[in-house]
């Protein structure tokens, strides 16, 4: 992040009647940053974006845009264009008229409007459709019109509300690349709301994870993936095995803990000020789990194979321990080929201590 942030949420709360849509949002967005706000539906991510756009007013707290407090300032007096999930293109205007719209609203003269719109149509590679109606365009082309329309005023920040959710999978990946490159070329801030982890993690510099109006974690994709702060984030990411444990004693390698399925060692760096009897929650990511044959010498948890899922170059194996806890192990097909397994067979699941991560907020 360079110099002052472009956006600052200062203890922002938004209520609709008794319902709290956003609870104490407190974060900053840097200039030129690609920030994704991620969460399942109803988590407050879209409300957060709409407050930034000026379409909703916070119930309490302050929002600063480029250093200025913007509470109560109408959306038409901010330059915070948004790309909508429905795209919200004007069906009664041509492509070029759509792109010119915000210039027209700002009183830019006709000739200049046309020139500036042309430049963006060009940049988005849709010049040939300039005089078409919106109904005549494909999904990907409409997406480009929506981007050109939002960017024509050359704003410092662009807001995107699940813009790719209507596209099919292969077009989605291509548009992700378009967006990523566009953001780097323009050097402006993108705030991107999505429920899709793959979209958020592949494009964003930093990700905000929200649930039930609360911000659960903010960080780079790698930080969040490696070090989720709490159980919600760990579960949301979907690939972590979560254990509840009690700290037992300090040993040379770290702390010995006792969890539902047995004992484990947690590196001392993960538990800087632990003491015997502390309750902790730690995770081990599925790809860091090891599987061994039941007759091997490996120390670990015995579990029964419940099924598996094909995930591209890898497979996710689901196992169940004697006490009914589900464990996930992700392995390449080569690694798995040496292991005799079918549904119902017993295997030993293990991991090495350095792959344990303690959830700091639990």
């Amino acid at each position, binding site marked *: 992040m360079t110099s002052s942030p472009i956006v600052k949420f200062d203890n922002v709360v938004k209520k609709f009647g008794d319902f709290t849509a956003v609870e104490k949002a407190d974060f900053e967005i840097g200039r030129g940053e690609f920030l994704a706000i991620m969460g399942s539906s109803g988590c407050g991510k879209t409300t957060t974006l709409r407050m930034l756009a000026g379409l909703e007013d916070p119930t309490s707290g302050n929002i600063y845009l480029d250093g200025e407090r913007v509470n109560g300032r109408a959306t038409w007096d901010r330059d915070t264009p948004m790309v909508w999930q429905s795209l919200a293109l004007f069906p009664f205007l041509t492509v070029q008229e759509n792109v010119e719209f915000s210039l027209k*609203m700002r009183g830019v003269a006709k000739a200049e409007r046309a020139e500036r719109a042309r430049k963006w149509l060009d940049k988005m590679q849709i010049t040939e459709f300039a005089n078409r109606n919106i109904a005549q365009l494909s999904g990907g082309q409409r997406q480009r019109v929506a981007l050109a329309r939002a960017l024509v005023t050359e704003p410092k920040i662009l807001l995107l509300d699940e813009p790719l959710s209507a596209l099919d999978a292969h077009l989605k990946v291509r548009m992700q690349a378009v967006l990523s490159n566009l953001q780097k070329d323009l050097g402006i801030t993108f705030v991107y709301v999505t429920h899709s982890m793959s979209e958020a993690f592949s494009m964003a510099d930093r990700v905000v994870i929200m649930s039930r109006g609360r911000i659960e974690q903010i960080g780079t994709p790698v930080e969040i993936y490696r070090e989720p702060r709490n159980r919600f984030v760990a579960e949301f990411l979907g690939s972590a095995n979560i254990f509840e444990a009690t700290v037992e004693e300090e040993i040379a390698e770290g702390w010995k803990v006792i969890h539902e399925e047995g004992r484990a060692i947690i590196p001392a760096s993960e538990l800087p000020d632990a003491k015997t009897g502390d309750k902790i929650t730690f995770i081990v990511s599925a790809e860091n789990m090891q599987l061994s044959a039941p007759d091997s010498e490996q120390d670990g948890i015995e579990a029964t194979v419940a099924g598996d899922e094909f995930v591209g170059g890898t497979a996710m194996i689901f196992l169940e321990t004697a006490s009914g806890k589900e464990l996930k192990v992700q392995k390449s097909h080569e690694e798995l080929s040496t292991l005799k397994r079918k549904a119902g067979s017993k295997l030993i699941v293990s991991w090495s201590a350095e792959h344990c991560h303690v959830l700091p907020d639990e």
Partner: protein
Amino acid sequence: MGNENRIINGWLMVHIALCLIFIFAPIAGSFVFSLNSDRFPSLPLGEFSFKWYRLIYEDPLVWAGLFNTVVVGLTVAVIATVLGFGGAYTDFRYNFFGKSIYLALALLPPTIPVVIMGLAMLAFLSRIHLSGSTISVIIAHGVMCSPFAMAIIRLRLSQMDPDLEAAAWNLGGNEWATLRHVIIPFTKPAIFAALFITMAVSFDEFAVAWFVSGLNETLPVKILGFLQGQVSPRINAIGSLSFLLSITLIVLAQLLLRNPEAEKK
């Protein structure tokens, strides 16, 4: 499709044809007799003649009635469409306490029996010294036609992507600019349809106009005057022309109300 369906479809066609004949036979009959030289509508027909059309063309009372009808119709169409647009947009845009009551009241006038409406209008307008003039017919018809305009424009607004208006605000248009550059262009076909339909409703409306028009009778009121005096085939001629005018307005409105998006698919 199997044979069975073809038979069912055939019968349905016949059914629809019979319904249409039932509705339009009297009008067609009136049209036929308007071109018949005989004084009374009877078979066999007499000679083909434009006599009755010539007679109404030469009658200054008919022209006066038509003039009143056109003035009232055009004015009412504009007033009712403006009011209807306001009512429909209020419904689209705002949620407020008592909204369902507001909607019920706004859409109420067509459900009131016209005789009651006419009497009430007469009583009210004479109180405020506005009865018996063209203005009074305009006011009364404005009340009766606005709900039609509102219903048509409401339907169009319901087809609008709810994000469209907010998108226009977000792109720098304030509420008035958005109304002008987004809402009105989007509802334009419905606005024109509302103009035509309210004009047609006003053209055809008789009962309330009869109560409140006084000496400034509209054409339907004039026709009744003719009927009371004598049964003249001139009425067939006027009827045919009125029908032609009304059906033209309704067809125009229907053409405008075809959903252009659905059309393309």
